[in-house]
């Protein structure tokens, strides 16, 4: 390298000012941050990205399943044999598991019994409309199964109500069961009328069995309520007695204190007179 080349290489090479450097770096960082945020936003706002497709599909599935579940759970026309019936039962299972208090459990069991009865009523109505004996036979066996389930639910509800320790809550649960039993009897009468029209002996017998069981549980609950009210009365009485005893003790103590104060007053007066 000759002198000229050296001189050319030595031509000044100023640096970027700190201010300009800071500005450029700021722009670079802003751009990086902006593009990252854009990427994140694009996933959800660009409908053709893979992740968005998956998210939207999942959301759609959830919506469809959710609405189907709500439809299935609240539809009395979904009876045993319907393709959505297993879904209905699964939801009921979830509902039962989500009832955390004993009172809530009793309410859920009552609701489930009512659903079974409505289903049974629908099936009995169907039996009148349909002349096909095989489907009638299938419906009858499903009605009987539903009625068995009603009795089972009632048994469980009564047992649960007995486990409630709080007297007020227990009373509330038992009253709810008794009230529901009235509705159940009404349903059973309606189903019985239809079964009589169809001359479904099996169903009529099952209804009688269910009615007997309900009456038995009602009696049981009545006995329980009598015992509960006796227990409640005695509890109140005991409490009242205790309060009166305490009040008497307190008043005795007060009078004793007063007497002792009077005597000590007399003694002090006597002492003063003796000194004088």
């Amino acid at each position, binding site marked *: 390298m000759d002198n*000229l*080349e050296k*001189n*050319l*290489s*030595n*031509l*000044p*090479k*100023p*640096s*970027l*000012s700190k201010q*300009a*450097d800071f*500005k*450029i*770096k700021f*722009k*670079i960082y802003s*751009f*990086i941050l902006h593009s990252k945020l854009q990427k994140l936003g694009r996933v959800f706002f660009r409908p053709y990205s893979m992740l968005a497709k998956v998210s939207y599909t999942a959301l759609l599935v959830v919506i469809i399943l959710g609405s189907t579940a709500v439809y299935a759970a609240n539809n009395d026309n979904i009876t045993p044999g319907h393709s959505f019936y297993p879904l209905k039962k699964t939801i009921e299972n979830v509902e039962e598991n989500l009832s955390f208090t004993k009172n809530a459990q009793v309410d859920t069991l009552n609701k489930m019994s009512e659903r079974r009865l409505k289903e049974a009523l629908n099936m009995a109505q169907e039996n009148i409309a349909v002349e096909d004996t095989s489907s009638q036979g299938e419906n009858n066996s499903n009605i009987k199964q539903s009625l068995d389930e009603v009795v089972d639910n009632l048994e469980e509800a009564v047992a649960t109500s007995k486990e409630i320790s709080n007297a007020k809550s227990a009373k509330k649960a038992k009253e709810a069961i008794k009230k529901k039993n009235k509705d159940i009897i009404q349903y059973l009468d309606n189903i019985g009328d239809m079964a009589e029209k169809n001359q479904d002996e099996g169903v009529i017998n099952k209804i009688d069995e269910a009615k007997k069981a309900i009456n038995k549980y009602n009696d049981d609950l009545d006995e329980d309520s009598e015992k509960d009210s006796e227990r409640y009365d005695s509890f109140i009485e005991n409490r009242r007695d205790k309060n009166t005893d305490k009040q008497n003790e307190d008043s005795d103590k007060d009078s004793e204190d007063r007497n002792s104060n009077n005597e000590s007053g007399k003694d002090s007066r006597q002492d003063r007179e003796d000194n004088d």
Partner: protein
Amino acid sequence: MNSKSDNFISYYDQFKNKIFVYFLYRVNFNREVAEDLTSEVFLKALKSFEDFDQSRSFQSWIYAIAHNHLVNYYRVANRETQLLEDRYLTKGDIDKVELEYELEAIMKIIKLMDSSDREILLMRFVDQLSNTEIAMLLDKDEGAIRTKISRSLAKLRELLDK
């Protein structure tokens, strides 16, 4: 920040002054314009950094972007003629870079040279690019670049001797 962004920042720190000097010598030592162009080039590079092949030389890549950006800058703003006319450095410009007497003479002569000679000398000695890199930038054969550099140097010597 991910590693790619970190890489870009480290490349920026490494080449910011080189790119600034590249522009400074080509925009009549106007610091503001050179700074703006430097900023634009790095942002342009950042936008297409995803496509940058890490096995390639970043220097060649960033100079290629700078070169194209400068050509575009001249073209779009129709400044090329004006810049060529104003290429003669004023006393103020020279003061700005605080040139020594000998270097000042060289700068004055360079400005009188043909733009292609001037460009190749700046690339080789100010930007300190290798012949291969200059060949890539100007899309020419490496041998041709070597010859061009020696011819331009000879021309400069001739002008300095006058």
